[in-house]
């Protein structure tokens, strides 16, 4: 065998390039008489081989592809609805293979669980071995150094062995004196880094899973000038983790004082593009009331929960009075922006208070510009010329059967249009401060003012910090594993002089240079000694 070895080499899977076992016959069960344990061992060996790891990695990559081709419930719920409406015939297919939940699907999970089992099976024996290797001195000097990398002979004899050892130590090698020479090894960190990296991946996966199950996510629409308390019921949307407990909701309330939006006005190419969103809020918690700012890219942390400003829009504040002038409705109504210029769509539902159930659907134009057709468009996203137009329906709003209904959608199936469209009355048009009559003497509607609203997301993940720290450990381990060279160097006394040579352990492009460097230092050292025979004695 040309390469010296010791049992302290890191234990690698059988098919590892440098594996000790490379020359052993493949351990395959030859017949069923192998017995149960034999089979278990065989399967385990297969599962923890490098080949299996590669195949599983390739499978994992391929399995992720459908997650980008088919809209996912978690990242693109609207896309899911759209795809399902367009392909009714394929629904069974999407559902059978969980194609809208790829990353939680049984097949995707199966792959990564197998991969992680394989990983554990890989890490455990290697860790054990590496711990042993760390305590084992460098191996014996091979019989023939001349076959190894960087082989050189430098002048010197048995008296120089000490000096050689010191030189190697200074270069960061762990050394051991043997009969007739020094054996040195360095770069144990490479394997340490590799193990740290692989373990960190496991920890990361666990931390992400634990964080998800202890934390929660919520979303809530907040109007300018309004407050809300952080209680479960105040959220429009709330997704608790599996082990979330309501006690972990921090106790605070939040007021959105102002949402400031800046639009580009100078650059014609980007005219009207928003360049800044800033939410000025007041938070009231156990520390009292304090003013804070929320921006995109700058979440606000309140007692361990992160608040994010994700979207926003206009909310006309509408008052509806009945035929006797009594107020039956007075609220800001959130409109959803439909385009870059914030042409927005909104719905008002009035199930009670008026003689009939009334539904209204219409547009809000922050900067209304009349078109030739008589309709309007918005010419700028800010409030330069606000105008609201409304179509009015009467009849059954369909709210009584208790089925949840979308506040942004008006179901006009059981209703009659009384204003706008093909009805006799034109759509209602309201600028700020204006009042219009509802058809059929139902009452009046006024547009009092227009405020902005912000959609605030709250998120708490108690493992966020752990995940971050683990990720940093992971990449540190990776860099160490990939860039630290591991190698052995021997210096051997022969009649010709000192033989020097090295052996790479794993990828080591710089081995020859390193050996050359050792040899150079030995040469210099011997020259120095020749100049100064009284050089200081060994001080170790």
């Amino acid at each position: 065998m040309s390469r010296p070895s010791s049992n302290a080499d890191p234990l690698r899977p059988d098919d590892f390039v440098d594996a000790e076992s490379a020359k052993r016959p493949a351990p395959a069960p030859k017949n069923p008489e192998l017995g149960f344990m034999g089979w278990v061992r065989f399967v385990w060996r297969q599962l923890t081989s490098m080949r299996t790891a590669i195949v599983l990695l390739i499978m994992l990559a391929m399995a992720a592809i459908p997650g980008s081709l088919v809209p996912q419930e978690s990242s693109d719920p609207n896309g899911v609805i759209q795809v399902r409406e367009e392909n009714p015939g394929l629904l069974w297919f999407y559902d059978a293979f969980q194609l809208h939940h790829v990353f939680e699907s049984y097949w995707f999970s199966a792959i990564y669980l197998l991969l992680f089992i394989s990983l554990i099976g890989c890490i455990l024996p290697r860790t054990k071995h590496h711990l042993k290797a760390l305590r084992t001195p460098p191996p014996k000097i091979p019989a023939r150094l001349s076959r190894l990398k960087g082989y050189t002979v430098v002048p010197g004899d048995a008296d120089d062995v000490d000096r050689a050892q010191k030189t190697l130590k200074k270069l960061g090698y762990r050394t051991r004196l043997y009969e007739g020479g020094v054996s040195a090894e360095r770069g144990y960190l490479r394997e340490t880094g590799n193990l740290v990296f692989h373990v960190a991946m496991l920890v990361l996966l666990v931390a992400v899973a634990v964080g998800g199950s202890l934390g929660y996510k919520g979303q809530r629409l907040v109007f300018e000038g309004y407050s809300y308390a952080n209680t479960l019921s105040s959220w429009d949307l709330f997704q608790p983790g599996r082990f979330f407990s309501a006690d972990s909701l921090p106790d605070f309330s939040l007021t959105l004082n102002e949402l400031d939006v800046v639009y580009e006005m100078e650059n014609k190419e980007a005219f009207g593009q928003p360049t800044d969103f800033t939410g000025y809020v007041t938070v009231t918690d156990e520390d009292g009331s304090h003013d804070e700012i929320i921006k995109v890219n700058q979440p606000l942390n309140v007692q361990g929960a992160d608040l994010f400003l994700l979207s926003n829009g206009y909310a006309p504040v509408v008052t509806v009075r009945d035929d006797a002038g009594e107020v039956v409705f007075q609220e800001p109504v959130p409109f959803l922006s439909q385009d870059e210029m914030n042409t927005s769509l909104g719905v008002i539902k009035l199930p009670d208070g008026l003689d009939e159930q009334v539904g209204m659907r219409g547009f809000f134009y922050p900067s209304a510009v009349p078109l030739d057709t008589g309709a309007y468009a918005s010419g700028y996203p800010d409030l330069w010329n606000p105008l609201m137009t409304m179509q009015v329906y009467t009849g059954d709003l369909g709210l009584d059967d208790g089925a949840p209904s979308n506040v942004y959608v008006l179901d006009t199936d059981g209703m009659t249009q009384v204003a706008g469209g093909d009805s006799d009355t034109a759509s209602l048009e309201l600028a700020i401060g204006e009042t219009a009559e509802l058809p059929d003497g139902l009452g009046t509607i006024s547009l009092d003012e227009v405020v902005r609203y912000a959609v605030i997301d709250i998120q708490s993940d108690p493992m966020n910090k752990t995940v971050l720290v683990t990720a940093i450990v992971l990449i540190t381990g990776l860099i160490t594993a990939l860039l630290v060279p591991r190698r052995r160097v021997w210096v051997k006394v022969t009649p010709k002089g000192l033989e020097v040579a090295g052996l790479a352990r794993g990828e080591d492009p710089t081995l020859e240079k390193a050996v050359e460097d050792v040899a150079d230092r030995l040469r210099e050292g011997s020259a120095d000694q020749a100049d100064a025979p009284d050089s200081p004695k060994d001080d170790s």
Partner: protein
Amino acid sequence: MEFETISRLLIFSAIVVYALAFVIYAFDIVSHGSSAKAAPARANRRELVTAGADAAGGQSQNVSADESTPVISQAAPANAPRRKRRNWLRAGFSITVIGWVLHVAGTVLRGVAAERVPWANMYEFALTGIALAVGVFVFAQLWRDVRFLGVYIMGMATLFLGGAASNYYVEITPLPPALQSPWLVIHVFVATLACGFLAISSGLSIVQLIRQRAKRSGFIASLPNADSLENTSYRLAVVGFILWTFTLMAGAIWAHAAWGRYWGWDTKEVWTFIIWVVYAGYLHARATRGWRGTASAVLNLIGFAAILFNFVIVNTYFTGLHAYSGL
């Protein structure tokens, strides 16, 4: 003239110069094939020696191919075709450097004109990304003689820069709020740099595969041997992989600030993950008996194909939060 106009002119000039470099490199290959059959694959041996040298190694750098040219020509007048070939390569490489300087200047001026880093839309991603890839190629020359990749790199640079300048061009617009973050500078820069390293690595893998299969013909025989190509390719991929891992993490940190979650399987995140996993497979393959050589080279190429797919197809045809293509 406005900076932006100058920037465009510089970019168009760079495309032309790159195309010229491509032609010269291609000519080098063709002429070698016809005239240098007799020339022994002497360069090979030197390549092998340099392959063992340190990236920052002083000595081996000094013996870079350019300086050794006179030695070769003095030594053997019979090697005239070989000298001619060296000259073609030198010309190709000098022109590459000129193109690169124009390209970098154009990219920097785009940033100056926009008053921000020039990587906020597809056009700018392409400018910066290709500049980094060519930059890695140019600087790799200080370390190894990789000019035989010139055809590949210049071909891609001409194609992609030309494509970007004609199809992706957009006027300068301000950054949308979601991009206003120091992470834009770090995350996107590191991602494009990673792609630069992986591009050169993939080129070496292609040459390696060719070299393994066709050993005899003229140009191919003059290339470094497959093992040395594979090692160089691996080393560049390692750097690329580390940078890509960092990209993935920095992206997660940024996503947390901008979108309220650090990982959400947005299409772009899915592809970043796929690319990462493919390269992890590649690194394993390099360390596995029976997978070294062809299989690992193929995985390296699949990884780079995924990168190109991610940039060209995912950016333009897929929907998602990363909708900053500006198209």
